[in-house]
């Protein structure tokens, strides 16, 4: 009996010792530097073109032997998801970043400048507004994923039926042509804009403001949207008049999201719309659109003191301080960013895959001369006009660390003006006051 007990005790002691040693060894191993370097590169994106990304990743892993842990989350919650991950110190090395979040994330130290990596900052073939969109306080924070701009689209068939020879060149002409179309009973609401509170809203507003020669903020980051000259008033007044006076734009625009505009414009019931340029392909796809072949792009109409300028946006590959903390990891991450954002095997493979698969735009100038891209665009649009409009695109002037918080207030103010609840001046003063308050707090 005594013998059995001692064997049991010995076994228990041995077991506990072994377990303690095992746990200690595992703990030490997990803290060791080389183990971190051996971890796969962590790559986070929002849930877009997932299969295309996976396919290009597989090619990267096969070619370099570098392992990549890929994860994605929905666009609608991406900012909040990533911030929570940053706060929780989740392992992320490279990720997709929207230009709208750059100041916020850079100030918080969640993404790091990439100026020391020459391949990432070779901008000789990159559009200027894209470089501007990836730059904050003089430092570049990544390389291009995709870029696009807000485009003015018209339904050529409807214009022809109304006897209109050429698309409008100014916002005054848009209103006049829309009135003609409405008066002839060809469309109840000839103009179709998305003014719903969603992430696209600021892009629609900025396109209107830029083309009317205005700005939201000056170069020093001070609010100027409320200023009668050079502010946002002409753009907002045009929208208010279109809804309230001329009744060429439905009051439901304040509940109409970007996707709803795409669907509604495809139905052929509208003459003019603002949409992200890449939607042109869907609008001219007979399987998805009743107006296939008749959705055309025109230069953004200009305001009285404006130009054909529009807003461009940029999504890019950012790099985290975690990736830069280890030289091997940093080098591998740069290779991955180059593979996606730069050239892979001497070609802009991923940009072309995205263009082919979903019609996405790009910030690479030379691609406008690429035969495959030109042939792709030619099937649904005027490639030279598309390129010309891109050259007139500018980054959003509201991108600041307080952009997210201000954006809600500004969107609400514009909607209230469009609904006739407040005047244009009141709306812009509210927007400017919030901007100034947040700027002081930052």
């Amino acid at each position, binding site marked *: 009996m005594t013998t059995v007990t001692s064997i049991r005790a010995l076994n228990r002691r041995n077991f506990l010792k072994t377990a303690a040693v095992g746990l200690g060894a595992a703990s030490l191993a997990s803290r060791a530097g080389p183990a971190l370097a051996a971890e796969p590169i962590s790559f986070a994106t929002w849930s877009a073109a997932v299969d295309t990304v996976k396919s290009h990743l597989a090619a990267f892993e096969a070619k370099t032997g570098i392992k990549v842990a890929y994860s994605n989350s929905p666009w609608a919650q991406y900012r909040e998801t990533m911030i929570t991950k940053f706060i929780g110190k989740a392992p992320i090395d490279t990720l997709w970043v929207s230009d709208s979040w750059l100041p916020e994330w850079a100030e918080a130290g969640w993404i790091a400048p990439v100026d020391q990596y020459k391949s990432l900052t070779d901008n000789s073939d990159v559009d200027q507004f894209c470089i501007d969109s990836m730059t904050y306080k003089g430092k570049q924070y990544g390389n291009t994923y995709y870029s696009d701009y807000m485009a003015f689209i018209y339904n050529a068939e409807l214009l022809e039926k109304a006897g209109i020879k050429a698309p409008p060149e100014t916002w005054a002409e848009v209103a006049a042509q829309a009135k003609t179309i409405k008066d002839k009973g060809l469309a109840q609401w000839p103009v179709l804009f998305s003014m719903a509170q969603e992430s696209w809203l600021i892009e629609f507003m900025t396109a209107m403001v830029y083309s009317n020669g205005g700005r939201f903020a000056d170069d020093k980051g001070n609010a100027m949207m409320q200023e009668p000259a050079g502010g946002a008033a002409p753009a907002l007044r045009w929208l208010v008049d279109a809804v309230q006076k001329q009744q060429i734009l439905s009051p439901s625009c*304040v509940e*109409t999201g970007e996707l709803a505009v795409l669907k509604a414009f495809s139905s052929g019931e509208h003459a003019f719309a603002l949409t992200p340029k890449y939607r042109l392909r869907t609008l001219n796809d007979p399987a998805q659109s009743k107006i296939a072949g008749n959705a055309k792009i025109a230069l953004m109409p200009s305001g009285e003191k404006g130009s054909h300028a529009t807003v461009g946006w940029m999504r890019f590959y950012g790099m985290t301080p975690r990736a830069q903390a280890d030289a091997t990891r940093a080098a591998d991450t740069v290779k991955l960013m180059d593979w996606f954002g730069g050239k892979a095997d001497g070609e802009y493979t991923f940009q072309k895959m995205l263009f082919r698969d979903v019609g996405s735009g790009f910030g690479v100038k030379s691609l406008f001369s690429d035969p495959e891209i030109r042939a792709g665009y030619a099937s649904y649009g005027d490639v030279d006009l598309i390129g010309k409009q891109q050259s007139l695109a500018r980054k959003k002037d509201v991108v600041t660390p307080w952009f997210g918080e201000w954006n809600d207030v500004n969107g609400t103010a514009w909607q209230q003006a469009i609904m006739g609840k407040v005047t244009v001046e009141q709306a812009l003063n509210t927007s400017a006051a919030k901007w100034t308050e947040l700027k002081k707090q930052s």
Partner: protein
Amino acid sequence: MTTTVAAAAKPRLGGVPGYDERSAFLLVAPLAVVLMAVAVFPIVYSFYISLFTIKLTRPGRTPFVGLDNYITVLSDPQFWYAVERTAFFAVLCVSAIAVLALLMALLLNEEFPGRRVLSALLLVPWAIPYVANALMWKWIYDSNYGALNGLLYQLDFINSYMVWLGDSDKTLALIANAFVWKEVPLATILLLVGLKTIPADLHAAAKVDGANAVSRFFHVTLPSLKSSFGLVVVYETMMAIRHFDLFFILTEGGPGDASHVVAWRIYVETFRNLSFGTGAAMAYLLALATLALAYVIIRALARKI
């Protein structure tokens, strides 16, 4: 023997717990730990963070501010506008639910062919998840291609498509309609249970006394339903005040600030602006208001029963 049993059953004050107490404690302990982790700790911790300026986009800057977040929230006119809208929404919803549920319960309390089928159909809205319900109403209300416009147009009630959610004067009422549609079944069941407990003798006696159907409804049925009504009113008031899903999916707080209710503002402050301090303060104020309101309603109804 009797003495021994009595002594064993006597609770021991300040002594070593007996086998029964220890067993009871051990059996309850896992649930108590879970409750502490998932209910008590978040409540206490959210109050704790409401005393700090916590903005996720400014990591490392989280000063203790005491009750400043509460003062900031209570002195913000936009918060009070949201309170007004929340109150309007809650009153509209609870009134409509109470009336419709009562009518449905009275109907289902009668014997008629197809009553069971109707009872089963009534549960359908209740069985639909809130998000699915919201998406369904979004399609119905859409001003460009919605089913409501389509129906009204085909029936010649309208000459052209109407703006629904985009009209700030209609927005809250339309969201309330979607909420009522979802909540009426549960309220009906609660009232139906109350109706079933009314003794048939009461109605029989009232009939003997010459009371007609209307008199019997107001003097027998309605007073007997007070406790069920109390439950419905308290529960639906709490649901309406805290409701978020429909506002998120149907309007995202818009158009303008037409559907900026308190729950929406808490979401924006916490999860869009990532200001967890003021967000937690708002959430606490909403919880306290809900609690106080429920207490007042229960007291008022208890006094009358």
